[in-house]
């Protein structure tokens, strides 16, 4: 009669090994190196992680439409869009490295934990080699960290906080969207030209990471040109009625109100400011002005007539006249019947850039992709010449200063381009104090 002895330690060891084996995403040897989710069949899977529910669901939906369009173009369907204007000719419309592109989607809900969970699911269960999308800096930082740990590439969607490519930068993460510092650098000269250099600014700032970095950036750039900052007031993210924050502005001696708000916060705070007649006031012998440093088309539509004449900045706008923009707007407009938003353009460009990097690197290995993207200069995707800087994985390109259209002729004509700020004016050094404290580390292939 045999006796089987089972020790507690033995069970734990066996369990740990079995658990690790089951939990880990598949690591296969491909291209001579092991990396996470190496595609072995005739397809490759991309993960599109966008807000499909929650306050930014419309923005997420626009991102998803653009990502689907990008997949069509990569697979040789449709009119090819920006594949015809992209300076790199590596993409041939036959998928990526000959593999047909497929995609899975996740819902970030604009919550960091939900976004991480959906990205994790796409990586571990669906075998996604790249995660793209999102509409919040908190989400971007959280998902970027996850992708770094998991060994896949993260091509960020809409994220504007300096920290994404500052203190929270990661080797596996890349940001095509501009940032708060760039907004300040682009806006300041236009503000000086239109409003003068002797202004007193009052800031209302959404009380979370993005709001703080934007306030810091705009205060720095406006004070550098001579403006005085009267007050900076943090407003809870959950605020809906900003009237009690607007009323003190009337008695503060400020002649400019800067709204460091986004989404519903911005729509409500701007609406409230207009209700209180701020734009009809004269303070310090100057016409009172409002500035919204970060605009989006969907916010502009939500704010309606209230944005008329209000200055802000954008990453990209469908009214640009470069070849890449025209090609993308034509593809998107003919397919969906309306112009794309700048978050849609960001996601579209990011998907093509990832695919192009794989083609140029000849591999899906994240380290090969990172090498192909670092220091990469290109054109033809909108915004003119663009550089993915190796030091921090931040894109550097022209930035737009826009104004709420005074006399819109149709539903999409909500913003007009005031200036295309050249990239040189918004470029900063990698060790700039606003971006300090971060370390890219090394790329993680997941092996």
């Amino acid at each position, binding site marked *: 009669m045999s006796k089987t002895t089972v020790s507690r330690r033995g069970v734990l060891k066996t369990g740990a090994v079995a658990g690790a084996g089951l939990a880990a995403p598949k690591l296969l040897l491909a291209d001579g190196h092991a990396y996470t989710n190496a595609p072995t069949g005739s397809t490759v899977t991309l993960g599109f992680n966008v807000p499909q529910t929650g306050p930014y*669901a*419309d923005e997420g939906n626009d991102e998803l439409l653009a990502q689907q369009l990008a997949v069509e173009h990569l697979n040789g369907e449709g009119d090819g869009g920006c594949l015809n204007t992209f300076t790199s000719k590596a993409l041939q419309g036959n998928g990526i490295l000959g593999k047909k592109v497929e995609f899975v989607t996740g819902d970030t809900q604009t919550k960091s934990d939900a976004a991480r969970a959906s990205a994790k699911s796409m990586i571990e269960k669906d075998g996604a080699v790249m995660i793209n999308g999102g509409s919040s800096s908190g989400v971007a930082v959280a998902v970027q960290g996850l992708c770094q740990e998991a060994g896949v590439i993260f091509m960020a969607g809409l994220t504007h906080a300096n920290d994404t490519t500052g203190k929270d930068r990661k080797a596996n993460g890349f940001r095509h969207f501009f940032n708060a510092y760039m907004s300040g650098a682009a806006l300041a000269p236009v503000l000086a030209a239109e409003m003068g250099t002797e202004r007193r600014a009052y800031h209302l700032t959404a009380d979370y990471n993005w709001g703080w970095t934007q306030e810091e950036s705009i205060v720095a750039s406006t004070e550098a040109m001579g403006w005085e900052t009267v007050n900076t*007031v943090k407003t809870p993210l959950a605020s809906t*009625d900003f009237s*009690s924050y607007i009323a003190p502005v009337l008695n503060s001696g400020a002649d400019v109100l800067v709204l460091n708000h986004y989404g519903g916060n911005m729509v*409500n705070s701007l609406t409230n400011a207009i209700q209180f007649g701020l734009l009809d006031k004269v303070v310090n012998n100057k016409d009172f002005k409002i500035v919204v440093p970060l605009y989006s088309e969907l916010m502009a539509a939500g704010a309606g007539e209230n944005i008329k004449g209000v200055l802000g900045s954008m990453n990209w706008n469908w009214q640009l006249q470069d070849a890449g923009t025209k090609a993308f707007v034509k593809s998107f407009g003919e397919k969906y019947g309306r112009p794309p938003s700048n978050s849609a353009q960001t996601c579209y460009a990011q998907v093509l850039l990832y695919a192009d990097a794989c083609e140029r690197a000849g591999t899906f290995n994240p380290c090969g992709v990172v090498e192909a993207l670092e220091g990469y200069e290109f054109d033809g995707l909108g915004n003119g010449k663009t550089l993915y800087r190796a030091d921090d994985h931040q894109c550097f390109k022209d930035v737009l200063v826009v104004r709420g259209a005074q006399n819109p002729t149709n539903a999409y004509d909500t913003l007009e381009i005031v200036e295309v700020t050249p990239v040189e004016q918004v470029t900063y050094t990698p060790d700039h104090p606003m971006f300090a404290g971060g370390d890219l580390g090394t790329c993680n292939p997941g092996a």
Partner: protein
Amino acid sequence: MDAILLQTLNGLDKGSAYALIALGLTLIFGTLGVVNFAHGALFMIGAFCAVTLQRVLSLSYETIDETQKDFLGNPLKVKTPYVESWFGPDVGGAIIEWSVPLALLFAIPIMIGVGFAMERGLIKHFYKRPHADQILVTFGLAIVLQEVVKYFFGANPIQTPPPDALNGVANVGIIFGMDIVYPVWRLVYFLFSLLIIGAVFAFLQFTTFGMVVRAGMADRETVGLLGINIDRRFTIMFGIAAAVAGLAGVMYGPINAPNYHMGMDFLVLSFVVVVVGGMGSLPGAVLAGFLLGILESYASTTWATTTIPGINQIIIYLVAIVVLLTRPRGLMGRKGVMED
């Protein structure tokens, strides 16, 4: 001085919304004993009644204007609302412009209907269940309703501007020889809330129906023993409470653009208002609504936020803690309500 007056006005205005929602919540709790977490959703549905009417009135036909181009370079499709073609641009334009006040008429039957459906279809099955069950089911219902609205209207806020005649600002400081401007529509909202609150109190105080309802709130069983169908009256009160929340939502649209989540934004605050005012107390709900609105407004002044950073974010909850520690039944709470 002008800053204090401005913040007081602003607090009264904020308090109007809190008081109207809390009034409906208290009505439902006081009559049916239900903790209705879907009440914020009724406020949101009211706001979307205004959005719907605005869209119905703006229904348009398209004509092609060859002289203008759209974003793809095709001839522009110009939309003309039917009401403008039927009644002329001036009258038709005015009808669309006054869509929010007109929506009050549109919203009353709809909100009463929604209230009846909600009470008869779902909530009545939970009368004898614990409050935790009621909270769960009504909270779930609120989520379902907001997702339905999001499905049809999207997640982006939708502007419902006030009529031009009630837009802009009024100098309210002229009485005191000061220059204090305040949005006209917010003054309208404040007066409207006083009117609705007054109407609800008058209805309960001066009508036979109201007297029976008040008696039922005090002692449901005894009123039932008198042969009065108190349940039917309480169902009607649910409909009235839904209409109050809905009308508050309709008129709130021009203050902040309606979005599917606006009910949830108000829900927690309104419950704090009800608790501070005293569970089941209608005057308490109104008093606490205005009081917390004013305190929140004062706490957002530059002086307050620089003296105690963050006070604007916690003041309401701070007051709630102090009130509950010193007066556990709230400011005007009655003995025996929500007490075992």
